[in-house]
């Protein structure tokens, strides 16, 4: 991984840091808290399911906070949505294995993703989930909501709302996946 | 006056000035003029007077006897969708060929004197070069009953062949040879043992194995060549082996010639230039009989041309339409067009490669075939027919089948950059190609 240099908030290529490591950490704690608050009586049936690549990392972190701060043990799963996307071929789109922790029938699922944008990934994830079983409820947790929804989808838990221009690129970097730990907004040119 | 091949001779004179005149029959090779008069070659030499006739400037060009192609499929009658005498002879002219021997495997085949007369009359109407028909050896080309060879010759057949197939019946082949000897006409064999080739569609070897296509072993050619050499030796007939492709066959022909067996043979440009690799990924334009063979055979063929085992170059011009070629490889018709690419390919593989000099090639394209098939022409000696090909051996062009005068577009050479092209072509004193275009 090439080293990255930042001068204040502006990086090279016009990238602005919107969240640092501490900010991401606080977001995890808050989301775990809100999940705990919102699901009284259902905590035993709670399952966190991350959408790769970074959603599964975030799901594991939220599960860890739930265990630490709220003594809730929620199983964590990974859901690959490649075969449910509506844009085959337009991006690197190789299917990866899904790994769900047992049956999801009757469970309260919290889908976890890094960035909520058009809503299409979440739509694909819900279709995929429903092919695996019949959960009681599906909720959505995201680290960043950057707006520009194209589908009637809204997150139940948001780490940070970051209003962006349509051409901008929101880049989430996590220690486990990327080495670095931050959220960057790169001003694209559309 | 109309000659037997349907060409009228042009009155008046024509002077071809300042070219490199190559006439192997007379041993001429030098810059000089050629004067044509009343359909004949009047004189060859320096500083000739045009006598008020037309002048063709040939400076920097080669002036040769019109080429004689002893192996051409004109497809008329019966398959006019593929080629006609009109289009086929124009393709010949564009390739510098002034006499074609038309193969008799038309539909119906040329197996009666009336059919010979028909082809000649069509040639007189529509042809722009001389058409000399070959007649079938057997009735309906079935290899069973001998055709009326004497009648065919009387009507104008200059050779006999069941081309497309070998005469598989040895008794028929033997008797036909006895008769062709009496008639003094070449017996032309398409040498491939039909029972051995079975369902083969390309050369049997590494490429056929890779492509999973049934192979045709060179043994199929060798068996018939061996048989025919024995028969020719026994009967004294002039055996002409068409489109030889196998190394072993060439060795046998070489050996037979050394013993005085009256055998001659031809090589096609495609067998000299290409190997079975040209089939690539099932390219039907490279499907031909006998098949394009491996490099070993190709090199043996070049060596045989070089040492005189091969007597003539012939195109085996075989036009087919998309209906015959845009099908599964095994179902596709065999053959490729060749009249319009023969000269540059022969120059490439025989002259520019250093295998022989230019007069050597001109001999294989003109005087040698004319002599073997007893045809007028093939020389610029005074009194000969005024059939002349003026060509530029260096002119670079790219083979574009859409630009062919032939109806056939079936060539594996499409897109190939070649050098050498007929510029002016004269048949019986008439200009049929001028500056590289049909008149």
């Amino acid at each position, binding site marked *: 991984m090439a080293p990255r240099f930042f001068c204040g908030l502006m990086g090279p290529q016009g990238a602005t840091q919107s969240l640092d490591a501490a900010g991401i950490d606080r977001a995890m704690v808050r989301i775990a808290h809100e999940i705990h608050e919102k699901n009284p009586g259902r905590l035993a049936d709670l399952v966190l399911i991350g959408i790769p690549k970074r959603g599964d990392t975030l799901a594991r972190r939220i599960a860890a906070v739930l265990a630490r701060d709220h003594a809730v043990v929620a199983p964590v799963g990974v859901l*690959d949505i*490649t*075969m*449910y*996307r509506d*844009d*085959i*071929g*337009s991006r*690197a*789109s*190789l*299917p*990866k*294995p*899904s790994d769900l922790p047992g049956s999801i029938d009757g469970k309260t699922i919290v889908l976890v993703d890094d960035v909520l944008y058009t809503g299409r990934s979440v739509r694909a994830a819900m*279709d*995929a989930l429903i*092919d*695996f*079983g019949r959960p009681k409820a599906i909720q959505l947790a995201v680290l960043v909501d950057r707006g520009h929804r194209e589908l009637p989808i809204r997150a139940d838990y948001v780490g940070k709302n970051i209003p962006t221009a349509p051409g901008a690129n929101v880049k989430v970097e996590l220690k486990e996946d990327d080495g670095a730990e931050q959220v960057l907004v790169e001003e694209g040119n559309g | 006056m109309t000659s037997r091949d349907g060409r009228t001779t042009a009155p008046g004179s024509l002077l071809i000035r300042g070219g490199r005149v190559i006439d192997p029959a007379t041993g001429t090779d030098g810059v000089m003029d050629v004067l044509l008069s009343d359909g004949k070659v009047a004189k060859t030499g320096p500083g000739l007077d045009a006598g008020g006739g037309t002048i063709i400037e040939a400076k920097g060009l080669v002036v040769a006897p019109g080429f004689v192609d002893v192996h051409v499929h004109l497809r008329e009658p019966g398959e006019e969708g593929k080629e006609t005498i009109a289009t086929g002879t124009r393709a010949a002219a564009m390739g510098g060929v002034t006499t074609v021997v038309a193969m008799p495997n038309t539909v119906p085949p040329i197996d009666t004197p009336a059919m010979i007369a028909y082809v000649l009359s069509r040639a007189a109407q529509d042809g722009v070069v001389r058409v000399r028909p070959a007649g079938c050896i057997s009735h309906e080309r079935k290899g069973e009953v001998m055709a009326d060879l004497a009648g065919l010759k009387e009507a104008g057949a200059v050779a006999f062949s069941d081309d497309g197939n070998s005469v598989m019946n040895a008794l028929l082949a033997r008797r036909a040879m006895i008769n062709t000897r009496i008639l003094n006409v070449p017996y032309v064999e398409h040498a491939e043992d039909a029972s051995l080739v079975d369902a083969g569609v390309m050369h049997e*070897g*590494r490429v056929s*194995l*890779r*492509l*999973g*296509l*049934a192979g045709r072993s060179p043994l199929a050619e060798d068996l018939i060549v061996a048989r025919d050499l024995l028969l020719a030796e026994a009967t004294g007939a002039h055996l002409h082996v068409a489109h030889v492709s196998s190394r072993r066959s060439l060795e046998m022909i070489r050996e037979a010639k050394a013993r005085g067996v009256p055998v001659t043979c031809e090589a096609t440009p495609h067998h000299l230039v290409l190997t079975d690799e040209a089939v690539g*990924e*099932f390219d*039907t334009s490279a499907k031909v009989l006998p098949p394009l063979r491996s490099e070993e055979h190709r090199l043996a063929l070049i060596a045989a041309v070089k040492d005189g085992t091969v007597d003539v170059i012939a195109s085996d011009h075989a036009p087919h339409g998309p*209906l015959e070629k*845009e*099908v*599964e*490889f*095994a*179902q596709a018709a065999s053959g490729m067009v060749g009249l319009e690419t023969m000269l540059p390919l022969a120059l490439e593989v025989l002259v520019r490669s250093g295998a022989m000099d230019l007069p050597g090639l001109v001999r294989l394209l003109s005087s040698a075939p004319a002599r073997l098939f007893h045809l007028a022409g093939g020389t610029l000696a005074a009194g000969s027919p005024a059939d002349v090909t003026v060509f530029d051996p260096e002119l670079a062009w790219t083979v574009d089948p859409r630009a062919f005068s032939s109806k056939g577009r079936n060539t594996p050479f499409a897109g190939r950059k070649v050098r050498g092209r007929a510029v002016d072509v004269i048949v019986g004193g008439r200009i049929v190609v001028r500056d590289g275009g049909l008149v």
Partner: protein
Amino acid sequence: MTTVDSLSAKDLLGIEPLSRDEIQLILDTARTLSDVAKHPIKKVPALRGRTMVNLFYEASTRTRTSFELAAVRLSADVVNINVQASSVVKGETLLDTARTLEAMTVDFIVMRHGSSGAPHMLARNLKASVINAGDGQHEHPTQALLDLYTVREKLGSIEGKTITLIGDIQHSRVARSDLIAFTKMGAKVRFCGPPTLLSADFGALGAEVHHDLKSALTGADVVYVLRLQFERHRMGLMPSVKAYTQQYAITSERVKWAKPGALVMHPGPMNRGVEIAPEVADGPTSVIVDQVANGIAVRMAVLYLLEAGRTKRAAAGGVS
């Protein structure tokens, strides 16, 4: 880790045009997609709205069904053309048949044909992706891919392994595709059969040519038995079926000549008791049934990756 994420060509005509990376990609993708069969709902919507035609000029229930299931599991629509009942018998050319299909906006044409190169001719003339499901004696690429997949699953890797194919190599498209496939992936391929059914020229194509079964099997990791076509005897290519069986049939004694635990494979359908003894076909190291199951996942991967490549080229401004 492979460096490609879709198939570069429009069609899958053979193993030969595939790169090693592309083969790896197909196998990895097939591995993931094999999970779909374990889902409560055994399909994913990836190819929803796409149409695949099974155009089979030779009967093959096994391969046709496998392609059909692969397409169905990806939510593509499938049309089976019954060639006997179609206009093929009325003298329509292959190209006309194909153009007719294309006019009906078909995305994939899966073709089985008795003539080597028939799918290549089709592919040159059509925008649809053509998948070769066996052409004459040329190639049967998806069979080779599922064979690779099966060996990798069972032995952990392909590289360095020795695969011995026994039988009528000369007329076998499976043998050709397997030769190219296993060689490309770093395995050694041996061919074994009587000289009339195994040309020495195969050596030049990269195979080790054996006419003696024992030497061919010694040290082999995979014993791959090909189906014997009885008409080869009528063609004079073997003295008799019995003579073949005596010399080349894989029996439980002979299979011991290979490495202990060597896999036994067969592309099916089997002539039990002819080229393979029943106890070997059903033996503990036989993976013949796995081959069939793996065929679906591999064909799903091929369909998906061809589609991914096509959309990718379209997005890049190329022609799809």
